[in-house]
């Protein structure tokens, strides 16, 4: 990411698509799990990047050079998610392109995961998804959630523990 912040600071328009292509899969997959909905995740991912771009357009190059990009984009994404939960109206509207006519397959065990995530407290759910689905560092999760790194670590640890218990419960049930 270091090389990319320098490039973005020198020519935002030219390099922003590179930032999108590097981060979009993690952001989309994380939002896919957090929302449980393909289309919502798609819209939120788009909107987070568009907002990030508009904000960065107003930043001086020095500020861009010191940015931690992944945490920054996720800060916006989580804010959108919170605000969207409160009100459905949101600006700017995502650009909805003509449908390709097919939906890509859901990630594995979508149904089971949706139920599992619902059984976790929000902070743990976020921390586990950001860490283990989207691949953020503890520092980046701390940036994005505003929680201290030590708290994030314990959120992840507890979240994983809880998930193991939930999944063990499922296995026992399926054996009976």
């Amino acid at each position: 990411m270091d090389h990319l912040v320098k490039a973005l600071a020198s020519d935002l328009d030219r390099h922003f698509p590179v930032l999108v292509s590097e981060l979009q899969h993690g952001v989309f997959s994380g939002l896919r799990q957090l929302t449980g909905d393909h289309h919502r995740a798609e819209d939120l991912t788009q909107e987070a990047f568009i907002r990030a771009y508009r904000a960065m357009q107003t930043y001086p190059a020095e500020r861009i050079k010191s940015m931690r990009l992944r945490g920054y984009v996720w800060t916006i994404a989580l804010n959108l998610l919170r605000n969207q939960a409160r009100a459905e109206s949101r600006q700017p509207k995502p650009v909805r392109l003509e449908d390709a006519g097919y939906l890509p397959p859901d990630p594995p065990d979508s149904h089971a995961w949706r139920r599992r995530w619902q059984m976790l407290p929000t902070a743990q759910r976020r921390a586990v998804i950001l860490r283990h689905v989207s691949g953020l560092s503890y520092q980046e999760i701390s940036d994005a959630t505003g929680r201290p790194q030590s708290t994030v670590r314990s959120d992840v640890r507890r979240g994983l523990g809880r998930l193991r218990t939930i999944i063990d419960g499922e296995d026992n049930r399926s054996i009976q």
Partner: protein
Amino acid sequence: MNLEKELGRLLTTAPREVGEGVVLGTGISDGFSVFESLLGPVVVTFNPLGVSAVDLLSEGFEQRFEQRFQRGLLEARPPRGWNDLILRALEEGTPGALPVDLRSVTTFQREVLEETAAIPRGQTRSYGWLAHQTGRPRAARAVGQTMARNPVPLVIPCHRVVRADGQVGHYGLGGIHNKRTLLRVEGALG
């Protein structure tokens, strides 16, 4: 099961629409799709404000676009609902409900193009008539330049604007031969 590994499997590829939507939504690039027209395949470019350009599908259209509009181009599907509007606009030779992005022209040129958009199929108008309509009767030459700058030929039917002496005059989209073809098909030329 290995939980961390299972979680890792939930990392999937973002759909193509995400990246395309971001690049279009930020205005960094316009999108383009290829459509059929009477003049053969044409490239139609678009952004959230509307259709921004129409050009013949030929070598170097991307460079021509970048040079004129100072933005990049990215092949993408049009915004939802626009596909049919574009097809109809190309077929009927008028924007109809299709939004058109005219940021690339001056205020005067925009007025001229808006008047041009209203010329019915099967009819023609002269450069002088358009100049008169926009309140600058002596600006026939500027009207001619505006037609040459029309970013969306076929959609805004500049081919229906001809010389007062009856000659068809210039045409930017592949030359005078194409202008004659269009007018003949529309029944405006014997």
